């Protein structure tokens, strides 16, 4: 495979979208090509940093405030409610 071929695959490599075999082949190619190596490494590090960059906390306060906004608009919302009765299976009654 030539250099251009690997360069075209850098985006897929960074997102972890390549099959293992091809990924290893690219890493081997990067040993011989510092520019390719830098592109691969920094782009993958960017994607990984982005993916672990935030844990958006859905706090109880936010949850309650959203519910209040819905109630204020007259929405009959009952979170954590069981499945509506008409969709539940009826237990057979014996005897």
């Amino acid at each position, binding site marked *: 495979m030539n250099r251009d071929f690997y360069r075209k695959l850098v985006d897929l490599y960074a997102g972890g979208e390549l099959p293992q075999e091809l990924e290893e082949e690219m890493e081997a190619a990067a040993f011989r090509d510092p520019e390719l190596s830098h592109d691969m490494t920094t782009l993958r590090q960017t994607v990984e940093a982005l993916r672990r*960059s935030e844990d958006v906390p859905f706090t109880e306060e936010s949850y309650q405030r959203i519910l209040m906004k819905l109630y204020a608009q007259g929405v009959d919302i009952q979170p954590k409610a069981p499945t509506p009765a008409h*969709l539940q299976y009826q237990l057979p009654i014996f005897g």
Partner: protein
Amino acid sequence: MQDSLQDSQTEKRWLTALSQGDASAMGGLFELYGERVFRYTYRMLRNRTDAEDATAETFLRVLKRSAELRADGAFRTWLFRIARNLCIDKMRQHRLIELPPDATTSENEERTALKVAVQQALAELPLEYKEPLVLCDLEDMPAREAAEVLNISVPALKSRLYRGRRALRSKLGGVVEKTDEP
């Protein structure tokens, strides 16, 4: 896989109930998707109050159009599309951008600094780059579904995603390299 199948069956039950006029089914849909919609809107708007408003408004719009609902698997895409449109409306208005909560004392300073840098860089990206990054890299949404939310083709989505990642790298400069774990 099991969870996703179960979610899909649960979604179908609630959608069927809602489309038949059972407004209380909204509670079930909110339980299923409320947190995800909130996280998505928060990531887009970077402000908790705006994200709470957008989340509530998203579910209100679902309720208003409940008669049109179909349990055909496209609900989630439609839901995120509503949330997206609301976010875009809100982004046109003035808003304050919140910095991430400074409650990560257990993490080392470098990693916290990296998170802040990544979030700021993401916030500064043009919307056409930011949206695919939020949907695909942060929400972990499949490309086909993200493309439907954005109303673009899958190749267009991938093109924006890849360009967005490169733009993010440029904005971060060498910050990522310096902070990367061994």
